[in-house]
């Protein structure tokens, strides 16, 4: 029982090594897929059945590696937050794996790195040792660099290289922060650091600020905070679809939860207010780029950043309601964003085209995909009765006291509606577009989508609908068992004013879409689309972000 956290990490690691071993023996590739599937299912069973009891008892499951107790050794902590993130991460990974079975003929290397990625992900959230967290972050990132470049197309390789360089700079900053913390309190275990490394314990405030800023910026690159997110759209767009899903739906969230955990243990409450601003800007700015994209997966990738903004801003407000909203939106976003990426992948699989302008009239050819994409689009735009509506309502209610950030969030929601209207237009018939732009696309050449790609789509859309219709269970579960806080007042999500607000956003969004589809709007989008930051500028922006962070901390 106690050693379950360890097994969560090593099962997939073991399976990965097994895959590598058996592939020297020229076995059929079905065995590789079987091993990876069964290892993920075992992990899911371990999380779901054996450790769910810690939630109910509100305990922390602690496993000391090598039996060395905490200040000296490394220990794995499984609390509510870790349980939650480990569970949704594994569920998404299972869907991604099922999806990948028939999508392409992936070699065993794909499954090997997939499992390594999973293992690193579990490690990051379970470990209670900050250096160990760094190591797991590196395992996770090295696997993801390789998987992004898997297709070996020139853009994918370039995206992977950019990500490698930016993220390595971030990890160096993180390591520097760890060094400062170790110098300050002589320990690496998070609980011990929480006790010894704060301003109350006599650590000089400037040192404290510097260390935290370095750590937050270092991990924030992976969690796609706004000036640090320029690697993300390319990397997520040009990766193979199952990997895009895993990166967008799980990896950036895991990184954010790591920040959550560090801030919680260090009691850096001042920093939380800063996240409100970062979050609202993160929600707004990428939407402008997303509106102008023509690549179907790149549009979704920009929206991943933007939705992270909602989560971060809500985390920044810091009340029990807003933290619940943040976690709930995190969960919902990982479901509907994976749904959207899967359906985008299915469209690309069937037609071989990823340019929105060249696709049209797909509803007749693939009605299933059209319907599930509609579910995903309605969820992400926050239309009742889908899950996005519930969590966005929680977020907007909790941000009421902060007018400017909530205005940014409002604008971001409008932009989201507009760009998803644009995305959904590919399923409708557009006579004007069809004749001019279709190029090499012809409706007869559509490939049939295998069933293993349809199952994840359908089950994810059912999850999106169910968690939208019955929100109170999940809200209560998150606030009582994971955050260990009671929501102060009974919340009514489906009130007329909330529904009215979301319909207003819908109307404004469609209006914005009509604007960007005019000639003038298209010129503006072209100008924005060309204004993408290169590698050098992104690296420079990381440093600039760090400086802003440190200065802002000083003011607060």
């Amino acid at each position, binding site marked *: 029982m106690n050693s379950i956290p360890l097994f969560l990490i090593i099962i997939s690691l073991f399976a990965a090594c097994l895959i590598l071993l058996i592939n020297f023996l020229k076995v059929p590739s079905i065995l590789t897929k079987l091993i990876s599937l069964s290892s993920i299912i075992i992990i899911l069973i371990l999380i779901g059945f054996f450790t769910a009891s810690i939630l109910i008892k509100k305990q922390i499951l602690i496993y000391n590696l090598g039996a060395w107790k905490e200040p000296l050794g490394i220990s794995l902590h499984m609390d509510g937050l870790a349980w939650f993130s480990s569970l949704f991460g594994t569920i998404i990974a299972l869907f991604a794996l099922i999806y990948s079975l028939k999508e392409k003929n992936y070699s065993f290397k794909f499954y090997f790195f997939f499992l390594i990625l999973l293992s690193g992900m579990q490690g990051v959230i379970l470990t209670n040792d900050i250096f160990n967290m760094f190591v797991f972050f590196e395992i996770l990132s090295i696997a993801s660099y*390789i998987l992004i470049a898997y297709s070996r197309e020139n853009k994918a390789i370039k995206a992977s290289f950019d990500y490698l360089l930016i993220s390595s700079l971030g990890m160096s900053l993180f390591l520097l922060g760890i060094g400062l913390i170790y110098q300050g309190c002589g320990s690496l275990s998070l609980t011990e650091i929480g006790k010894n490394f704060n301003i109350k314990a006599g650590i000089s405030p400037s040192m404290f600020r510097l260390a935290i800023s370095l750590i937050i910026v270092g991990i924030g690159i992976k969690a796609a905070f706004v000036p640090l997110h320029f690697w993300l759209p390319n990397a997520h767009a040009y990766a193979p679809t199952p990997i895009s899903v895993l990166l967008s739906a799980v990896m950036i969230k895991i990184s954010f939860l790591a920040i959550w955990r560090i801030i919680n243990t260090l009691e850096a409450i001042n920093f939380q207010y800063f996240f409100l601003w970062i979050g609202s800007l993160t929600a707004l700015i990428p939407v402008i780029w997303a509106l102008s994209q023509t690549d179907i997966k790149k549009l979704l990738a920009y929206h991943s950043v933007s939705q992270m903004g909602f989560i971060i801003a809500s985390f920044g407000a810091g009340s029990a309601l807003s933290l619940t909203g943040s976690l709930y939106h995190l969960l919902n976003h990982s479901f509907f964003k994976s749904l959207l990426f899967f359906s985008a992948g299915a469209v690309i699989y069937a037609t071989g085209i990823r340019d929105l302008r060249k696709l049209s009239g797909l509803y007749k050819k693939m009605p299933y995909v059209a319907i599930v994409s509609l579910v995903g689009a309605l969820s992400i735009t926050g239309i009742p009765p889908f899950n996005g509506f519930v969590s966005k309502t929680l977020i907007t209610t909790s941000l009421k006291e902060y007018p400017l950030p909530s205005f940014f969030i409002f604008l971001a929601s409008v932009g989201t509606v507009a760009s998803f209207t644009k995305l959904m237009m590919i399923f409708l018939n557009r006579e004007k577009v069809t004749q001019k732009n279709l190029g090499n696309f012809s409706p007869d050449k559509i490939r049939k989508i295998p069933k293993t790609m349809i199952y994840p789509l359908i089950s994810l859309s059912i999850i999106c609908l169910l968690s939208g219709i019955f929100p109170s269970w999940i809200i209560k579960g998150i606030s009582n068992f994971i955050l260990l806080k009671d929501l102060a007042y009974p919340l009514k999500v489906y009130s007329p004013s909330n529904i009215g607000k979301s319909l207003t956003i819908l109307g404004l969004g469609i209006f914005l879409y009509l604007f960007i589809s005019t000639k003038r709007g298209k010129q503006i989008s072209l100008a924005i689309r060309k204004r993408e930051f290169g590698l050098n500028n992104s690296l420079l922006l990381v440093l600039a972000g760090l400086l802003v962070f440190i200065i802002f901390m000083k003011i607060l």
Partner: protein
Amino acid sequence: MEFYLTFLLFLIGIWGMITKENLIKKIMGLNIADSAIVLFFILIGHRQGSTAPIMEKGIKDVVDPLPQALMLTAIVIGICLTALALTLVLKIDKEYRTLNISEIEKLSRDE
């Protein structure tokens, strides 16, 4: 003093990463920054006049061995990253026929 020098080395590395156009030089910059961090950790553990932490009779004043152990891990990770980055550079060279970042970005821009 040593801390400032380490910091200077770190800045040199980052400067290399940001300003150099050649991809391999960028990776070198990353390596320099990493080495600066390794030095920083070693400095944290170091104390003037103390010896290696091998516990024999009569030894009282030892350096903190933990940063050194951590840095072994960090160095190994750094080597992995460098190897991977250089492999990617090789692939980029094959695809784009250049190692200059601004030219590569011109070639890979969306239409």
